[in-house]
């Protein structure tokens, strides 16, 4: 019986190993041909031009900006929502809001993209008097909404796990409810909250479908109101018809993305280990 369970566990490990091996073996040749420095910090991406350029700095910076800004916007909202759900809400309110947050996390990303395209893009165009609403800002707003459920759910769990003795002691010493929550509960749950932010950032950097429909897809250096292309959308928009060095370069982009996600996951496991100790 144990052997059966072990074999299933090994199947999961084998999948990750296979993907890693595939990405590394497909992604390295192009990096070799283009040159690592030219690839990572080159600013010009023109994969189908007569004089092709394969610099992915615009994509790396756009993805990092979008992930960071969406976490900056999403975390206060998500954290305070989690605080409310964990500490201040009545059981019924908590049940209702939790269900709605779960619903938000279950909405497919293409639906987010569609709503973004129909509502957000014209809205941003009008609000900021731009020539066109498809921009980094639209993508950031969509991503903030998408990372919200992750942050709320994991932070709520972390805040629930804060021992009642801490809060009771704080209240006994004369602090108000809000002072206790901000000064005791949140610091006590900080590792879990940090884990939720890293998970959210992982989702934000890996999102392709939703941002493809609202960000314009031109390979520019990132600027808030300009059209941008991310690591994910760069792969998605060119993979189907690519060939030769262009296709290998797309695999290299996938490898870079994979490295980012691995760094985030390592940060996450380090944080989780710390919170357990």
């Amino acid at each position, binding site marked *: 019986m144990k052997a059966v369970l072990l074999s299933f566990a090994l199947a999961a490990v084998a999948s990750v190993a296979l993907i890693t091996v595939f990405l590394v073996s497909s992604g390295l040749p192009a990096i070799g041909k283009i040159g690592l420095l030219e690839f990572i910090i080159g600013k010009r991406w023109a994969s*189908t*031009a007569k004089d092709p350029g394969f610099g992915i700095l615009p994509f790396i910076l756009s993805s990092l900006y979008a992930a960071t800004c969406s976490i900056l916007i999403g975390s206060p909202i998500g954290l305070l929502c989690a605080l409310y759900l964990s500490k201040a809400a009545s059981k019924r309110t908590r049940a209702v809001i939790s269900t709605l947050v779960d619903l938000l996390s279950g909405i497919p990303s293409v639906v987010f993209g569609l709503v973004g395209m129909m509502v957000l893009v014209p809205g941003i165009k009008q609000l900021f008097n731009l*020539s*066109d609403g498809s921009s980094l800002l639209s993508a950031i707003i969509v991503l903030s909404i998408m990372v919200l459920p992750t942050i709320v759910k994991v932070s709520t769990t972390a805040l629930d796990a804060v021992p009642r003795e801490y809060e009771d002691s704080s209240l006994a010493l004369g602090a108000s409810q809000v002072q206790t929550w901000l000064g005791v509960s949140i610091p006590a749950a900080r590792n879990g909250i940090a884990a939720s932010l890293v998970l959210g950032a992982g989702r934000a950097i890996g999102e392709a479908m939703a941002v493809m429909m609202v960000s*314009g897809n031109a390979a520019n250096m990132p600027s808030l109101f300009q*059209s941008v292309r991310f690591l994910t959308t760069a792969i998605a*928009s*060119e993979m*189907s*018809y690519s060939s030769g060095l262009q296709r290998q370069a797309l695999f290299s982009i996938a490898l870079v993305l994979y490295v980012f996600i691995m760094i985030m996951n390592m940060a996450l496991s380090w944080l989780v280990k710390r919170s357990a100790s």
Partner: protein
Amino acid sequence: MKRTAIVIAIIALAACMAFANGQRETRSISTDGSTSMEKVIGALGEAYTQLHSEVGFTYNPTGSGSGIASVKEGRCDIGLSSRALRDSEKAEGLVETPLAYDGIAIIVHPSNSVENLSMQQIAAIYTGEITSWKAVGGPDLPIVLIGREAGSGTRDGFESITGTTDQCLYRQELTSTGDVIASVSQNENAIGYASLASIKSSVKALKVDGIAPSEESVKDGTYAVQRPFMLITKATAKLSQTAQAFFDWALSSQAAGIISSSGVVSAGL
């Protein structure tokens, strides 16, 4: 009892999968590629399946470049491209057969007062020399350039005819003709290009050098911005019987009427 139920469910699932595989090989035609050809291929597929009800017809709108790659790798029966094959693609053993000729309409928002642009103006707009609608007789608004992804046949046709290959400064690069039309219809500053057969009343097609795009002006060549719709097949591999029958029928005079009614000019005429 529960165990037998699980075993039966697994067998049923396996049987479904076996049947699904079997059907695809003999009685289906799969086409893949150009999004501009959606109307034509949709009409042809529908008419053909009405004549031959046992045949399943699928069309996958992925873009010309993707369709060419798909037929090369054997993932579909017939590839659809809205541009001619390059020499490198022909050298890889692909054969093109013209199905129809389609105009590429230069589209703007219906509220835009501009009616006509010359070829030079279009090139200047798309390469970024002209940035305001005022410079071409329109309202004092910035021009937003909407285009297609790099593998698109429509983009290839547009850029080669206007002489702007690799020089266009797009604000948005969208992946289908429908997306371009939707995007232009929502933004009064926008200009885009899309298949003439696909445009709806939500956008306005401009005249190019004084010629309005229509089937007649595409047919007699006065509307210069046009490109062929090609059926792409492999030179070395034979099509399945079902696919070959469809291929021959689509190029015959019986299908010419259907092709014309989709808004493009049949290659047979």
